[in-house]
């Protein structure tokens, strides 16, 4: 029987990891990810799991060890945030190119500089082109559920890509909230056992991982990584369906809230969607036809799903919790480019919010919606919510 647990988001993720019971976890602490590693080390030290834990001396070594472990055929996980992810990033790309199904929760935090420990999405956006599958989660339940689903998807033979599960620093990781935890057995059966085709430890059939890959093959290998991403996109609905069978919870590429008859839509990632849903409810009560689109899957980017839901609407506001200096904000630019092909393009607005953990209030969300309602959207203008100009 599933049980209700009222704990922090970090604990919820650590419980998902405990139930998956990976062969190896290598990690390094960084606020606000630290409690995940600490919980997990506690599970190991109490003998609750028999994972081999490698408490490395840096995130660079965490990702390096994780590559060595996953290439050896072990189910392997790590977790990090912000500067930890930045330090890892060289090897983050390598992990994807070796097609290693590593799962890594990322507790989103502003990337230095200047140094700041609070939530934004600059860390995840920095590695958005690294070849990892990227999930974004609103709350404890989703962070827990997606950690489990990520394991299932990453290990599909036609996918074999690493996956990161993003959750908001402090808001989700340290906030206490209830979530429903599945039975250990149910999760174990869902993820199954991992029996990779190639392993460094198979001395009978030696493989060479990470050769020098020059102009005559490198291009083709990147093309294959793209194919794997396409396969991930194709496999996801099946994973969602299977997960619904064990949990009763139905996920999709996009979480849609009151969109059916909506003229105006907001697009936002992670925990801010909760605030936005509250504002949608308020505006609905005032008679405005508004709704919310929350991408759960960011890479592979669900372009078709965006096109379907945004086509023909009057206005769409996209909220980014990261900047792309000198260019359009990361989520906005993708949403905007996906609309190039639709029959009836909505007017668009780009909003930056919540950088470095800046509180995002219902009033700010309302401000963006009101611009849309008043027909005051300019596609080429980046606006800011809660910024002192």
């Amino acid at each position, binding site marked *: 029987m599933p049980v209700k647990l009222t704990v922090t988001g970090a604990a919820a993720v650590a419980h998902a990891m405990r139930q998956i019971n990976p062969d190896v976890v290598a990690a390094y602490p960084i606020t606000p990810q630290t409690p995940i590693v600490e919980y997990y080390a506690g599970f190991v030290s109490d003998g609750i799991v028999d994972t081999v834990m490698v408490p490395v001396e840096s995130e660079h070594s965490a990702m390096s060890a994780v590559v060595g*472990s996953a290439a050896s*055929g072990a189910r392997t996980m790590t977790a990090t945030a912000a500067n930890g992810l930045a330090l890892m990033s060289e090897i983050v790309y390598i992990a994807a190119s070796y097609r290693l199904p590593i799962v890594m929760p990322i507790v989103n935090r502003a990337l230095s500089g200047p140094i700041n420990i609070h939530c934004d999405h600059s860390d995840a956006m920095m590695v958005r082109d690294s070849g990892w599958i990227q999930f974004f989660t609103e709350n404890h339940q989703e962070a827990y559920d997606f950690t489990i689903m990520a394991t299932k998807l990453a290990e599909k033979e036609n996918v074999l890509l690493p996956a990161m599960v993003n959750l908001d620093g402090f808001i989700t990781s340290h906030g206490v909230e209830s979530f429903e935890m599945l039975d250990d057995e149910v999760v174990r059966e869902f993820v199954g056992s991992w029996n990779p085709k190639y392993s460094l430890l198979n001395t009978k059939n030696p493989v060479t991982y990470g050769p020098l890959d020059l102009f005559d093959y490198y291009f083709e290998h990147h093309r294959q990584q793209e194919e794997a991403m396409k396969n991930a996109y194709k496999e996801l609905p099946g994973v969602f369906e299977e997960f619904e069978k064990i949990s009763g919870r139905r996920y999709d590429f996009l979480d849609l809230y009151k969109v059916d008859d909506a003229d105006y839509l907001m697009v936002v990632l992670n925990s801010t969607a909760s605030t936005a849903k509250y504002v949608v409810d308020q505006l609905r009560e005032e008679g405005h036809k508004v709704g919310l689109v929350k991408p759960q899957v960011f890479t592979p980017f669900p372009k078709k799903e965006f096109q379907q839901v945004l086509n023909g609407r009057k206005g769409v506001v996209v909220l980014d919790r990261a900047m792309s200096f000198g260019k359009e904000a990361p989520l906005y630019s993708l949403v905007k480019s996906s609309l190039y092909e639709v029959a009836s393009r909505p007017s668009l607005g780009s909003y930056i919010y919540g950088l470095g953990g800046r509180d995002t209030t219902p009033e700010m969300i309302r401000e963006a919606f009101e611009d849309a309602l008043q027909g005051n959207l300019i596609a080429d203008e980046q606006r800011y919510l809660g910024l002192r100009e």
Partner: protein
Amino acid sequence: MVPNIRDIVGYVETHDWGFTQGHRLCPGCNAPMVANWATLAAKSMGYEPVVAAATGCLEVSSTIYPFTSWNVPYIHNAFENVAATISGAEAAYRSLLNRGKIDNDKIKFIAFAGDGGTYDIGLQSLSGAIERGHDFVYILYDNEGYMNTGNQRSGSTPPGADSTTAPVGKAISGKLQLKKSIVDIVAGHEGVYAATAATAEPWDFMRKMQAALEFKGPSFIAMLAPCVRFWRIPDDSGPEVTKLAVETKYWPLWEYNMGVYKVTKKPKTFKPVKDYITKLGRYSKLMKRPDANEILEELQNYVDAKWDRLLALEEISKDKPIRTKI
């Protein structure tokens, strides 16, 4: 079971090498000897080596896709992380053995890296892996510079050797700093087996390799392995040059085991360090400088003092390990 030289020769006649033909290392390069001998030592002892390499000459020249010279499982990850990579593989091995997912208890992990990947950019990863006590053998092929990228200085480059980022010029006599004593750095982790070796002394290396493989924990061997190209020496002279390095105290052969130092080769007489230096083309610019003799004298004093220190360490640590387990 430690095999003798006859067993090893017999092994070569009847078995596959771990590192085999087709690589593109320069003719005369000493790096492939290191790879060959290390995997051979492991295989002849009945172990099944799993190898990791750092970016560098050995790596780029041995695995040009779709070819590989490695006849054993091999992973290259990046330049600075071979020790972390192998520690992940070793952790996976322990985990999968514990869980009964594999039953091969013959695997031994061997990491290879150049001096750049060891003394400099890879030092943190190496230190972390040793401190955590992973069971692996780390072999440094020390050619005293970044050779793959074209003869730049490293933390191992000795003073006065010509390199492109610390060239010997009119105003400055090349690199001014001494070479780091990497084996001492590794020995500073205490719970470790560490040794020097030279390509001129294959049997000494074999014995140390065997000790390293039998050691339950991290072990490290620094092998002086000339780059014929940038040391400006004839293709067939690598081992001859490392022989001179040993005979001049430039590169003493010794080992460290959990606190106990042992000098493994004690020549009765030594040649002057000048004999070694003047053999290498990379010092010819230095030798033309007016202060060449001064610099040589300094180096002579340095190697003399280091040798005496080594003998003293051997004496005071005799039968006195500072640790007995890792």
